[in-house]
């Protein structure tokens, strides 16, 4: 092969390589954005539960119960959680990383606990449970819990997808250049001690 043909061949091969690298990088970026998108869903599903606490719960528990410690604690935790979900200057939710992630997930766990305590109190209080408001409220609570569960699963799936694309070849080759790290997005994980059931008295369902 003469020099110019060889140079053309090399040039084309390099061009093809570069384009594929760009393509691979774009794939990784897409998956990173998907993980952020799913995190936004997680945030909004928790938002739904804090909204339930702020808006629907007061009517259900009635005026006199709102001063009780268990409900004040819940409202505080809800506000703290809403505060710990941060957004960037464009309003996009920021996926917390590293130490921040531990803090946020700890906050979530604290909110979960306060919520269970409040729900337990309500379930034992016949004045509250006998209302239609409570029945509707329980449907909404179940719905919001289901959404939280699914949002977390979707987020974890998106993180796995992202990690796969970054850690497997050929993504691993490109990832460093684009600044993509495998641990950029933390998984939603169990908190220490969360695998022990909260110390709440579970009423046995009456038949």
């Amino acid at each position, binding site marked *: 092969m003469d020099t110019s043909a060889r140079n053309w061949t090399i040039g084309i091969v390099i061009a093809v390589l570069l384009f594929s690298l760009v393509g691979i990088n774009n794939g990784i970026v897409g998956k990173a954005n998907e993980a952020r998108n799913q995190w936004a*869903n997680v945030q909004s*599903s928790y938002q739904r539960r804090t909204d339930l606490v702020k808006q629907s719960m007061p009517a259900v528990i009635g005026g006199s119960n709102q001063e009780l410690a268990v409900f004040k604690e819940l409202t505080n935790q809800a506000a703290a959680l809403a505060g710990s979900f941060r957004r960037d200057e464009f309003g996009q939710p920021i996926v917390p990383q590293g130490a921040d992630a531990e803090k946020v997930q700890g906050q979530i*766990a604290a909110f*979960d*606990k306060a*919520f*269970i305590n409040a*729900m*337990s109190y*309500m*379930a034992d209080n*016949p004045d509250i*449970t*006998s209302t239609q408001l*409570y*029945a*509707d409220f*329980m*449907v*909404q*609570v*179940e*719905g919001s*819990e*289901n*959404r*939280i*569960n*699914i*949002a*977390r*699963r979707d987020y*974890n799936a998106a993180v796995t997808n992202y990690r796969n694309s970054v850690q497997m070849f050929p993504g691993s080759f490109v990832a460093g250049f684009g600044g993509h790290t495998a641990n950029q997005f933390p*998984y*939603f*994980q*169990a*908190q220490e001690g*969360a*695998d022990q*059931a*909260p110390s*709440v008295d*579970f*009423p*046995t*369902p*009456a*038949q």
Partner: protein
Amino acid sequence: MKGISKVLYSLLVAFMVATLASSALAQGSEPPIPPATVNGNYVLDQLDWLTTEQEAEINAIVSELDTHNMAQIAVVTQNDCGADSQTYRNTFFRTWGIGHKEKNDGLLILVCWYDGDTSRRKLEQEVGYGLEGMIPDTMTARVAQQYFVAAFKTGKEAAQVVADHDAGAALVRMVKAYDGIIRGDTPVELQKTEGDGSSALSLLLIILVILVVLIVLIAWLSDGSGYSGGYSSGGSSSSGSSSPSSSSSWGGGSSGGGGSSSNF
């Protein structure tokens, strides 16, 4: 009321403990999702609850909603929905892709029978993102309560309710109620349950079914442009050129867990 609330509460707490303890639920015990229905069939009656007429009625109603791009309703009866029927229904919904893809206007009505076990059997409903505004969780619970759970509280044995196709009729009534809600006709409280003994009514329904089938055939023959068919797994948007021999009835919509779960 207290008994029900305690059951609900225990369910909720168990649910939350599972969420707290692990973010990844065990997948192993979930039964496989049956293949999606095709060709304008919106019902998968694995428990044989519905008569042919009832099934045709439901298909007629949903077909109307589908061709007018208003919603897609799936009615499925199944015995085993796995250990967690709430998670299962979401997987089911997404696998089938219920609802038009751009609007996510799908609704899944899933009966989880568990051999009639009163402590496990559930009517699960999952609502797509786009329909959640019109059909919030509490409304699905009310529709379930008013039209479905009530059918099992008449004093008859559950097995008898099923054998007499009362359960099937209840499912038809639910679909009609949702049809009314989606079209904005009448509020749920005022929905009248149709008597199913009148022969004039059945004649009307048969004519309606024939009309709808004719419309569907015409749409199908003019290159299937009436359907937003085609299986979608997060890929490109659905086109109008789906092959008519066996195209999925579903538009590829998704859901985020909205809906409700009713004991009966």
